[in-house]
């Protein structure tokens, strides 16, 4: 895509445009700001009008105060707060007008993503206590947890306000791991941009690099050769398989099913070793480049190994689905209603477990997915059990997709020239193991990266997750969190 697909909109027309999208059965996807000039930010809104229809992109020049759309499409609330923090954009009528990404006490000399903020300028910070809702009552207790948590976990701070076993209110304080990744993209070449995209969320390296490369390819009008497109599907599905196996093992950890935990993690390890043999990296890093693949892969041995693994995985998941002690802890735990999932922007297996039938592999196909039979796993119950079942089914579908791809792999080169174009923009997306990753890439007049917006699935799902914790009980918390399969670094960036 060049800027031809972008539609200009006045900021006061935003509420009507947003209501039209929702009324016609679409949904808002994301919003971000960038600085085409040193002086003024420009806003971009992206709407999804459903299967088979291109994403709508609106370009909006912010006025004195752009109307907030958070009360029309609540999922946009976090994007708007992020723009306030990092780009200095102001919104009127925002229901939660306080910082999100930057912690209280951070004092940047200018909005960090604006061009006047220098690339290597540190940001002064004197930590301030987290603002929590005031609570009264004799037996109400407050439990702070984190940011350094037990075992080996990513950093985030949670506060439980509870009576006995019942959680009254749950506060997730995120963005301890905010690294300013989007600023680091600025000024880089597109090949260096790929390396950075791989390091936004390690366990989503492939999906992030894929979305980034596709955004560049879309901006510059390059088309990877067919073999690269098919191999991209194969790599993306391998990433899904090892992530989902890890998920199943970790979920068993929270329900104290020890052998189930060991088996899930053992199977995950086996897939990571397959990744290393295939690509040289357990995380499938260093394989993708704009225009195709860095080098060819020889997956001839993969089919038979995967078939052995498929039987073992089936043997494992069949047992999980027949283990009452496991299921007892999952059924009705952390129920996410379909409407909440839609309004707050849940993505991936989380939304599909709440009955929302969306998957970009089928609805907005990329790589070689348009030529493949993509089945989408759906459950209606929205509880931890449904989220597990969706993932179990997705592992089976992923293996079937790879087995479908292997005999059809076209011969030929895996890389076509993709010369960085000038002053162009592109949108790329990929359905990662955790949901949809979006990359919006803007290239400057010299072909270097001017702005990259990263939308990771965990940014969407962390916003949704607390709705399933309020008014639940302490005993279920760890199981519920595991059932969402969230990463923190993807969210915090």
């Amino acid at each position, binding site marked *: 895509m060049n800027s031809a697909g972008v539609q200009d909109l006045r900021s006061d027309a935003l509420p009507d445009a947003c209501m039209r999208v929702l009324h016609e059965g679409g949904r808002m996807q994301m919003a971000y700001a960038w600085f085409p000039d040193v002086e003024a930010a420009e806003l971009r809104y992206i709407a999804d009008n459903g299967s088979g229809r291109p994403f709508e992109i609106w370009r909006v020049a912010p006025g004195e105060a752009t109307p907030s759309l958070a009360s029309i499409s609540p999922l946009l609330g976090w994007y708007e707060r992020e723009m306030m923090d990092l780009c200095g954009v102001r919104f009127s009528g925002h229901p939660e007008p306080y910082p999100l990404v930057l912690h209280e006490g951070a004092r940047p000399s200018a909005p960090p993503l604006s061009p006047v903020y220098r690339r290597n300028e540190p940001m002064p910070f004197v930590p301030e206590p987290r603002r929590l809702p005031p609570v009264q009552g004799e037996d109400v207790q407050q439990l702070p947890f984190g940011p350094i948590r037990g075992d080996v976990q990513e950093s985030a701070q949670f506060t439980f306000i509870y009576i006995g076993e019942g959680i009254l209110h749950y506060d997730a304080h995120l963005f301890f791991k905010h690294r300013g990744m989007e600023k680091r993209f600025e000024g880089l070449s597109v090949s260096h941009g790929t390396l950075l995209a791989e390091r*936004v969320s*390690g366990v989503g390296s492939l999906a992030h690099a894929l979305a980034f490369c596709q955004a560049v390819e879309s901006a510059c009008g390059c088309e990877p050769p067919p073999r690269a497109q098919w191999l991209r599907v194969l790599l993306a599905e391998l990433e899904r398989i090892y992530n989902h196996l890890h998920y199943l093992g970790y979920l068993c950890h929270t329900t104290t099913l020890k052998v189930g935990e060991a088996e899930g993690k053992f199977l995950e390890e086996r897939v990571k070793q397959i990744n290393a043999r295939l690509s*040289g990296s357990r995380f499938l890093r260093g394989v993708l480049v704009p225009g195709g693949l860095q080098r060819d892969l020889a997956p001839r041995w993969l089919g038979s190994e995967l078939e052995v693994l498929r039987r073992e995985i089936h043997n494992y998941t069949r047992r999980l689905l027949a283990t009452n002690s496991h299921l007892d802890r999952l059924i009705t735990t952390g129920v996410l209603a379909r409407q909440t999932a839609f309004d707050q922007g849940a993505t991936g297996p989380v939304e599909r477990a709440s009955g929302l039938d969306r998957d970009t592999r089928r609805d907005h196909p990329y790589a070689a997915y348009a030529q493949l039979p993509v089945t989408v796993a759906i459950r209606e119950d929205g509880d931890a059990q449904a989220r597990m079942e969706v993932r179990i089914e997705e592992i089976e579908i992923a293996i079937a997709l790879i087995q479908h791809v292997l005999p059809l792999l076209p011969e030929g080169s895996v890389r076509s020239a993709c010369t960085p174009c000038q002053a162009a923009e592109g949108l790329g997306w990929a359905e990662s193991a955790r949901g949809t990753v979006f990359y919006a890439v803007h290239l400057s007049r010299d072909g270097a990266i001017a702005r990259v917006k990263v939308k990771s699935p965990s940014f969407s799902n962390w916003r949704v997750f607390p709705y399933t914790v309020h008014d639940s009980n302490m005993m279920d918390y760890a199981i519920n969190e595991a059932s969402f399969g969230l990463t923190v670094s993807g969210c915090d960036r």
Partner: protein
Amino acid sequence: MPVWTLFGLQRGKATIDWPFAGDQDGQEGLCGMPRHDPARCAPDCEACAVVCLPGAIRIDPGPARTVQVDYGRCIVCQLCIEACPEGAFARSSDWAFGVRRRDDLVWQEALASEPGRQLPGKIQKVFGRSLHVRHVDAGSCNGCESELQALNNPFYNLHRLGIFFTASPRAADLLLVTGPITYAMRGPLLEAYRAMPEPHWVMAMGTCAVSGGVIADGYACGRGLDGVLPVDLYLPGCPPNPAAMIDALLMLLGRAPQRVQGGHLGN
């Protein structure tokens, strides 16, 4: 017999014998740090330095214009190997890159004769062969966490080596830090460090913690652990694989030798 117990028994032993016996460490095909051979360098060629995003390869500003390599900044992306027209960087499986001195990650023509500084000799006396580790994620991409979690899968089974992750820094001997140290995690990291009993050790795991990696500086990050806490052990890698982690932890305990000196991996 309960169904899962039977299942576990039927699955048999999954744990490798490495590092005690054999060489089956599970890292077949994995790319390690590129091996550097400056004798092959063409004069005035800077191709490798141009493609190196984290600045692990730099051209010496002096008149000799030699190539300088710092493995503490390497993210193992392999781009230098593909960019070099002369083969001065070669693909390797060198991943056991734990070192006690940061200098040992910088490639040197002639090796210093003294081996890497030994840790204070008391670590074995104090802890015997066991170790309790408190991990702190100070802004990683979660790649390091994914591999740290893999340490306790049945394949590597870290427990068999007497090494355990512990929840409280008060029960920890080693503070294992990942990530470039974000502005918001710096405070909690220092608090965890201060809560540890003496004697204690600190390990920088992954290229981000060693040097800041691809994300060094900027408004939200520092340059890794140096200058924040005294570091006893550096392990670069993006991320280091679980076998490299085991090797480095055993090195800390004096149960394995340091393999890297002056950027060269020996035996």
